[in-house]
Structure formats: structure tokens, C-alpha cells
């Protein structure tokens, strides 16, 4: 994993470095799903010969489609309670983004209000992510941590966070 990140950093997001890796994997993934779109095989042929901007864009698009499909199917397997937490996180982040956009339009004059608004959303999201990490059954590290305890910690931390925010709101 690190190898990819460092590669990416070094090459400054140049796609050519990943090409041989991406295409076969994408097509195999497709094949495994029992469908073999002709576009992908064609692209696979092209990728061996030449690298062109057009093809790259197309391949990226189809890659992304395949990726989103597999992500969706993988995500469908997550338990409902984790999905609820995810929804909560998305909602919090969306609220934060709305506030930042609003700040961009109106200005950040009562800076403490803006700061507490955004950080309240970000903090909520972060704490929810922490809770999600802890109650996720697939995380082996938190096996012996009961979800009730995790939730109690979450509530406590939220309490502290929002007390601070109420104090800071001004």
C-alpha cells in the first residue's frame, strides 16, 4: 500500500505508472463477475501497445464504474448499525461543508461561531468514525471491547465536545 502512495507522490499523480497494474485487474474483476465487456478487452490490448489520453480517460471511467460497483456490493454487506453511523457521518460532513460554503459567501465575521459550527460537525463526524471503528466486528483489535462501552465513551466524548462548543459559541 505504501508503495503506491510513495509512487504516486514521486510521480506527481502521473497515471502511466499504474497502467499495467490497473487494466488486467479491472478486466479480471469484471470477468469474475461473469460479464466480459468488449470495451475492456479492447482497452487491455491498447494498454499494452500505447498510452493515449483518450484511452486513459475512458479506462478511468470504466475503472471507476467497476470500482463503484464492487464498492457498492462490498458495502451492501455491512451491518445496518454501521450503515446508520455512516449516514450520520455523511450528514455531519455535509453540514460542515454547507457551513464552509456559507462562510465563503457571507464572510467569517463571528469567527468563533463559524469555528465552533464547523468543528462541531467535524468533531461529531470524527467521534462517529471512532465509534464505528470500535463497534465494527471485523476489527480484531477491538474484539474484547463491548459495544456498550464504546457507545458510553462516544457519548462522554460528545458531551465534552458540545459543552466546549457551547462555551465557545459566544
Amino acid at each position: 500500500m505504501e508503495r503506491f502512495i510513495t509512487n504516486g507522490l514521486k510521480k506527481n499523480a502521473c497515471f502511466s505508472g499504474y497502467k499495467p497494474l490497473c487494466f488486467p485487474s479491472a478486466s479480471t474483476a469484471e470477468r469474475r463477475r461473469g460479464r466480459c465487456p468488449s470495451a475492456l478487452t479492447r482497452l487491455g490490448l491498447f494498454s499494452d501497445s500505447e498510452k493515449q489520453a483518450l484511452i486513459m480517460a475512458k479506462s478511468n471511467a470504466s475503472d471507476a464504474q467497476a470500482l463503484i460497483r464492487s464498492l457498492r456490493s462490498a458495502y451492501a454487506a455491512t451491518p445496518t448499525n454501521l450503515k446508520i453511523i455512516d449516514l450520520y457521518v455523511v450528514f455531519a460532513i455535509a453540514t460542515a461543508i454547507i457551513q464552509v460554503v456559507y462562510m465563503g459567501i457571507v464572510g467569517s465575521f463571528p469567527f468563533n461561531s463559524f469555528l465552533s459550527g464547523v468543528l462541531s460537525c467535524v468533531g461529531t463526524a470524527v467521534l462517529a468514525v471512532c465509534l464505528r471503528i470500535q463497534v465494527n466486528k471485523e476489527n480484531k483489535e477491538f474484539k474484547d471491547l463491548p459495544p456498550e462501552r464504546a457507545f458510553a465513551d462516544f457519548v462522554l466524548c460528545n458531551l465534552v465536545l458540545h459543552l466546549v462548543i457551547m462555551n465557545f459559541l459566544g
Partner: protein
Amino acid sequence: MAASSETKGEGTLRKAFGGVLGFFILLLIGALAFSIRLFSVIKYESVIHEFDPYFNYRVTQFLTKNGIYDFWNWFDDRTWYPLGRVIGGTVYPGLTLTAGSIWWLLNNLNIPLSVETVCVFTAPIFSANASWATYLLTKEVKGTGAGLTAAALLALVPSYISRSVAGSYDNEAVAIFALIFTFYLYTKTLNTGSLFYATLNALSYFYMVCSWGGYTFIINLIPMHVLLCIVTGRYSPRLYIAYAPLVVLGTLLASLVPVVGFNAVMTSEHFASFLVFIIIHVVALVYYIKGILSPKMFKVAVTLVVTIGIAVCCAVLAILIALVASSPTKGWSGRSLSLLDPTYASKYIPIIASVSEHQPPTWPSYFMDINVLAFLVPAGIVACFLPLSDASSFMVLYITTSVYFSGVMVRLMLVLAPAACIMSGIALSEAFDVFTRSIKLQLPKLFESPPPGSGDIDSAQDEVVKVDNKAATDKSETAPKERPSKKNRKKEKEIVETTIKRPLKAKRLLVLPLEASAVAILLLIILGAFYVVHCVWAAAEAYSAPSIVLTSHSHDGLHVFDDFREAYAWLRHNTDVDDKVASWWDYGYQTTAMANRTVIVDNNTWNNTHIATVGTAMSSPEKPAWEIFNSLDVKYVLVVFGGLVGYPSDDINKFLWMVRIGGGVFPHIREPDYLRDGQYRIDAQATPTMLNCLMYKLSYYRFVETDGKGFDRVRRTEIGKKHFKLTHFEEVFTTHHWMVRIYKLKPPKNRIRGKSKKSKSNSKTSPSNSRRHGNLRKNPWQ
């Protein structure tokens, strides 16, 4: 100093016994940490020390008298005349609030202690707390044995003693405790992954922000560690839980402290944490996606996630750089810049460079301040790598950065001291561990049968388990102590699953010859004894002087110089309550706290121009100086003079800084004018500018009357100009040893100056001063 063995026998009784023993050892360590800092009270008296503590004491008095709300809104008009100072918004309130609440609690329990007593003993109490926090931190890193050793070392370390003797009522006293405790909670969160500890961590960080400007060290060190973990592939969900809530909560809590305020999100010192906050989210997302996708599909995802991540990082980086570049100082405050570039302060900010504790330390000061720990630290670092856990990598990072910072500024030796203690504690404990284990393994063999050979490692390896049960009974005292450590280490090993095999094997192999280990234990104990002897000496002799009362030993006994308090008491009793007293900024806090008089500048050096004005007045000739002081409503001028008794940190020795700081704002003051061929001197070779400046005159006025020659015992020379009169100032008070001299500004004259009239008007305006007839022609400025 617990040793460790391979005891596997059960016995909850022994575990309980070990727990109780460990508790009592900790209690004793706390008592030791408290009592070793009482030398100053025993040798001198229960008094607040030095300069800054007087300000803190005054603020605490205000807090206990007027309550918390008045404290937050306190505008102090007795300093920085005519500007005043908003105390509530410019002070780190942690120390004051701590002492104030201790006082409040004690008074509510009907224990009538004075505020001063509470203030004097706050630092020793918190050093006991700090040694317990050290125990906890080291226990998280390397187990109980190392924890106890490190706590004992920290209780004694001279560097910390120098800042926390009884009476040294300064921010660092509580801040070091807060620093260590924050680090403990961070490592605890890292080891357990509990959100509860993360919350506590943020609160402890809040306490640190309240107490000391050094909190930026924490908010930079922890992101560095997180980044290190990510780069070395040690990212885990625990890391996320330890870091992400800390940034959000910590930033919010830091903004609550008035002195920090929006700086918590606006200055560069904090940007590293936000950057790492973003990075850790990207990394967490990558790990999450890696977890739910098949490896092949993940490779596809990597491309996209990496591109998006890099794009976000680049955008944020660009925003940050734009923000930073738009601010004039690039967002860094002077003190932080002088940390990164050690020559920065001396080049640009004389007011920071002028403080001796902001200078880089010398090599002997390392030996003085951390003594034998300096030699043990490398061993501790090595021990931290076997096995390398998240917590121990944090300690390695902590010691490395603090060594760098201590090399920049002698004051930050204080940050190095806990790290050095923890490292040495680990080293000592591991060494004892190895030696006692090899003794334990070989002792029974010695009795049962002649040993086949001391280097016989393989047979020793086989007998490890067999021998253990016997060995455990031998050392009934040390064995129970390390039982929790064993447990802890096991827990650690579970976490670091990759490294589980190697250390176990190494542990089996590490059997040293019996004689060698016995000698080594002896040597280590001697080393510890040297350390203890040095620390007690440092606490008793070097660091317990309050510097407000001075003593000197000579052949005819002990001399006590109590001139400062004498002078401040004189001011308090003989001047009007609204009189303004001018002195160099060092004495500002003491004057407001002890004499209760308004001062022009004080040790909170927030307004450089104001200080430069006083510096200019001190370096100007009498008349311009009088004009400057008169424009500031100054009634009295106070100078500290050590020439008679040989007190080296007096105003003449600080004078070049006054010239530099004054010249930095008022260019007509030029440093070369005061130097003869680049040398600072006050004898007959000195420049006329020097001999005519106000500081020289106020210091050496009538000095020749003491011994007839005017021999300055600090500079070890006869002064350059011996007989002169003052025209615009009159001496009103000089203390017993001439250490503090107070002058009064003469009122302006009514008549136009003429040589014949002047002596008349002089004697008329100040009839009390009988020494003041004389030929004024001797004064070149008339």
C-alpha cells in the same frame, strides 16, 4: 528498580503484594520529589523566588481576593504605565487557577493557609504528580519496572528541580506535569484504542495549554509521531482514535484559553496538526477501502484514492502556504522561530536574546542538569527498539526532538529532562532485568553441581523453565514487583504481533556470566548512587537560592544580602501610592508585587517600544533621560548595582542589552558609542558616552566614597569617572549593601538656567540633600 525474571508461577497473592509494594514505592517517590525541593525553605525561608513567580503570586492574590470573573476581566493599570495591561487575556491561567483552587479548597476545609504558602508549595506538589505521571507513561511504554525507575529518576533530576523548588512558583512547575500526563494519555489511548482516554487526553492537553506556551511542543510532536507511524506502515485504528479526536477537541479547548484564542487555528505552529489530521483521514479511508475490497479490486481503487488524496493534499497545502505567506512573520511567533533557527533571536529580537535562559546551553550544563542520564539515554533508545511498539517509537521521537530543542535554548532543557529520565529508566530497568535473570539462572546451578561452563548458553536455555520456580523464591522481593510488568509486556506483545518471536528468543539467549552480571549490577548501583549524590547537591546548593535573598560564605561567616526586599519595602512605605517607578524590565514584576507601585515596563515584554524607551533613557545623558522619564510621569528610578558586594547580574552588566534594545527603536543610540574598540568597559578607558549615560551615573554616584578608589568588584576594575554630581536626579535611598539604589526625579526648574543661579536653585529644591553643593562645572552636560 525492579528486575525481571521468567516467573510463570501463579499466585494472585504475590500479584497483590507486588501491587501494594509498587504503590508504596510510588508514594515514597512522591515524598522524595516533594521533600528534595524543600531545601530552599529550610536554608532560606518560605518566600517566592525570582521574577516571574512574583507576578504569578500577585495574580493569584488577585484571583483569591476578587474571584474568577474579575480575574478574566482584570485590566491592570499598575504596570506598563500609561498603557496598562489586560492580565486576564494575556496570561496563561493554568498555574494561577491551580494554586487558587488549592487555596480555596484548603480554606473551605478550614485549613487557613496564606496564599503565599500555597504558592510556595505548589511546585513541589506538582513535581510529585509529575513523577507519578512519569511512572504511568513509562509503564505504558515498557512496563512497571521501567516505570518505577523512571519515576525515581524524575523525582531527582536537577534540571526539573531547578524550575520547581519550593517558592519557584512558575508556569513550568505545573506544565511539566501536564506535558508528561498528556503524553501518558496519548500512549494509553494508542495502546488501548479507547475513546475515553482520548477524551481525557484532550482535557489534559487543555490543562497544558492553560499552563504554558510550551504546549506547541505537544501539538507538533504528536502529529510527527502519527506521521511517522503512517510512513512506516504502522497505521492502526487505535492511531486514528488517539489522534483525530485530540485535534478537534484540543483545538477547540485551546481556543477557549484567552491568551491562545484564535491563534489555535491561525498560526503556523498549529498547522502541522491540521495537515496530519487530513493525511490520517486519507490513510484511514484507504485502509478501510482496502479492507472491504478484494485485493485486485483494491489496486484499481488505489489509483483513484491516491489521485484524489493527492489533489486534496495539494489544495490544502496551497491554501496553507498562501495563508502563511500572507502573514508578515510567516505566521510564526518570534520564540518559535528562534527554536527552528537558533540564530534568529540574536539577529532580530534582542529582547528574546537578552534573557539568559534563551541562550543555547553549554556542554557542562548538560552534565549539570541531567548528569549520568546523558550516558544512559542511548541505551534506553536501543531498548526502545527491542521491540519497537507504537508507544516506544513515540518515546524515541520525543527524546530526539527534545534533545534538539534543548540544544537551542537552555530553558528547554526542562523538556528534555523527562524524556531523559524515561529513557534512562528503561535502560536501567532492562539492564537489571538481564543481569538479575542471568544470576537467577545460574545461582541454583552453582549450588547443585559445578557449572559446566559459564558460557554454556544452550543448557541454560533448556533449564529456563525448570530453574524459574526455584529462582522465584530466591528473590521474593523483586519478583512480585515485576509481575505486572510481565503482564504488561505480554499485552504489548499481543499488539505487536509481528515482533513477537524475535524478542522471546533473544530473551532466552541473554544469559551472561555470573561474575560479570554481579559486577555490572554493582556498577549500576554505584552509578545510581553518584546520580543521587549529585542531585542532592544540586538541589541543596545550586538551585535553591531564591535570588531575592542572597547569601555568601566568607571567612568571617555567612552574609545575607536582603537588599531587594529592603528597597521594595522602602518604596512601599515612603512613596505615594500612585507614584511611578522606572527600572529596567527585570524588576518590574517584583516592584508591582512587593512595593505595590506602578511600573513603566515589566517582565511581560509585550511592548518592545516601551522597553526601548526605558532603555534609551538609561543610555542617554542625564538631561534627555530626565525628559523621557518626566514625559512618562516617572517619580522614582530604581537601579540595581552590584559593584560594592560583587553581585554580577546587576544593571551595568545588563546595560549593553538596554543599549541594543533602545537602539533598535531609537537609532540615535548606537552600540559602538558605548564600546571602546569593541570592548565593554567602565574604567578610565571607557568612552565618554558610556561615562555620561544615566545608567553609569546612577550606578556609580558617590561610589568613590565607599573605599576612596571606586573599585568595582564585579568588573574588577576602578571606575572611570569617580567624582560627579547629579543635576536632574537626587538620591533618595540606597540599601545596606548598595545593591538597589533609588533616585527621585527633581522637579523642573522655574528659572532660566544660568551657572550662578543653578547651585542656588539646586540647594533650594532639595534642601534635604546636604551632599549636593558642589561645582557643577564638573558635569560636562551643563
